[in-house]
């Protein structure tokens, strides 16, 4: 294993969207669209399994917002269904964070906290640029503010609830920490102040975890294997299984309309 990120090679069978020859804005739309698509899918797995009825509604709502964002972004990069259903694992450009399995409710909340704080800040910056993605960012940032609030409120409840919930929440926050560094890597077509993004993200997460009586993890935010890897098409084992489930029906009926 090496610390050098994998080169950005798309799988040979991947159709269309090969970021190398696509305009930079397509690369950016694909990266952000894949984040939203994949996290939406993971949240959709909670349907019928949530700890309380209100969370069935809330998690589905966040999943739907993200799916809506994904559809706009992927359509900017190509055909939304071709991109979602016909790319191989190595052609996806999402962060490894969002593909991580749900785990328990605390794990899901930790993932959502890290991602929503990032997405809120990132869309906030993007909305103020001249990018073709700015209109989407301006609309989505309002939705994401609610996602962040939801995740922060639950982080407080679980962190500062019972001893058992505190332990689970700390475990979730610790386990996912190593996937957070990737959020601050460069993405072609995204002209962002990445230092400010990292600084504001760290300040916010540190504040929330502190209020929730949780400890900010001390480990590295990216490892030898994870540095920039999702954005380069290198994913974790559970992702292939997730895609197999997601793509199976669509791929079983080539060319069919639904």
């Amino acid at each position, binding site marked *: 294993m090496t610390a050098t990120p994998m080169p950005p090679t798309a799988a040979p069978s991947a159709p269309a969207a090969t970021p190398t020859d696509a305009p930079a804005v397509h690369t950016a739309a694909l990266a952000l669209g894949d984040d939203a698509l994949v996290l939406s899918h993971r949240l959709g*797995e909670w349907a019928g*399994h949530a700890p309380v009825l209100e969370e*069935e509604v809330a998690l589905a709502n966040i999943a*739907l917002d993200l799916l809506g964002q994904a559809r706009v972004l992927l359509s900017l990069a190509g055909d939304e269904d071709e991109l979602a259903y016909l790319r191989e694992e190595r052609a996806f450009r999402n962060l490894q964070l969002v593909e991580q399995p749900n785990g328990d409710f605390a794990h899901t909340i930790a993932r959502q906290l890290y991602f929503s704080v990032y997405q809120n800040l990132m869309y906030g910056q993007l909305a103020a640029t001249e990018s073709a993605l700015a209109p989407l960012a301006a609309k989505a940032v309002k939705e994401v503010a609610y996602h962040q609030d939801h995740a922060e409120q639950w982080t407080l409840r679980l962190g500062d609830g019972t001893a058992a919930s505190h332990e689970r929440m700390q475990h979730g926050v610790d386990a996912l920490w190593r996937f957070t560094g990737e959020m601050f890597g460069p993405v072609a077509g995204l002209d962002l102040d990445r230092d400010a993004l990292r600084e504001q993200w760290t300040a916010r997460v540190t504040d929330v975890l502190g209020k929730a009586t949780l400890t900010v993890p001390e480990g590295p935010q990216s490892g030898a294997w994870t540095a920039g890897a999702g954005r380069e098409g290198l994913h974790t084992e559970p992702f292939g299984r997730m895609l197999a489930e997601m793509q199976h*029906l669509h791929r079983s009926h080539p060319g069919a309309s639904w």
Partner: protein
Amino acid sequence: MATAHQPLTTAPHQPAAAAVDTAALESAFDAAVAADERIEPRDWMPDAYRATLVRQIAQHAHSEIIGMQPEANWITRAPSLRRKAILMAKVQDEAGHGLYLYSAAETLGASRDDLLDKLHSGRQKYSSIFNYPTLTWADVGAIGWLVDGAAITNQVPLCRCSYGPYARAMVRVCKEESFHQRQGYELLLALSNGTEAQHAMAQDAVDRWWWPSLMMFGPPDAESSHSEQSMVWKIKRHSNDELRQRFVDICVPQAESLGLTLPDPDLKWNEERGQHDFGAIDWSEFWSVLKGNGPCNDQRITQRRRAHDEGAWVREAAAAYAAKQSERKEATA
């Protein structure tokens, strides 16, 4: 007037006067129902009316949350992003309907925890239709078209139910159910007009869901145990058989437009009655599924219990945090 949580009480020290009062309250209640006025949570109502409503609303709420399972089964495999968004929104609506309905039951003095406990322990039922499996993507369409279609036929009259909170909840539920029914129809239409394999998938789903959908209206009028009193109380407005007939008459032309066949060789237009005749329903299957022998009874209730049990620590954490917060508020006050 009694509050929502007060059972019907007679003052213990004045039995004679109380009896007169009860009689007066009862006749006022009967007059209000007869005049199509709404009964509200704080109004006096007979114990049996309250109990009937709690039973019916709870069963309806349970059906919404159990009904999420067969459809959620396909969220992760929906074959296009548009279909995935529609299905997620639909399953979310069902959770929302569960919330309104448990709230409506709470206006009668029931508690959601207690009702869930009764669901989990089998003391209260949910609609038997959800004990059938969703085996293919077309089942999502068949549930929308037939199961939600049958539910709407049952529920539209409930918008005029004598109990106000239930009637108002049903107005909103029916609007959303109507969207669900249309998406199911439209999903099946796309399959029916699609490839040969897609068309076959749609026909197979309709073949499997048609008869169970007809059973959703409940046993024939002659065998329905709760119907008569509910009609008098205007909780129920039409008999099981009337609603079933209405549903069949609606579905026949829709099936033709879909290019799909309803699996009943005896189904035909009866000129004299101005309605369709249809074949005999296998009520032994209905009773068997109701008693717990359907293909998914165990699976549905096991998943529900597991979600509830595995979520216990989350609910405890939320309660503990809320208690700490109010202690802190008091300490700083």
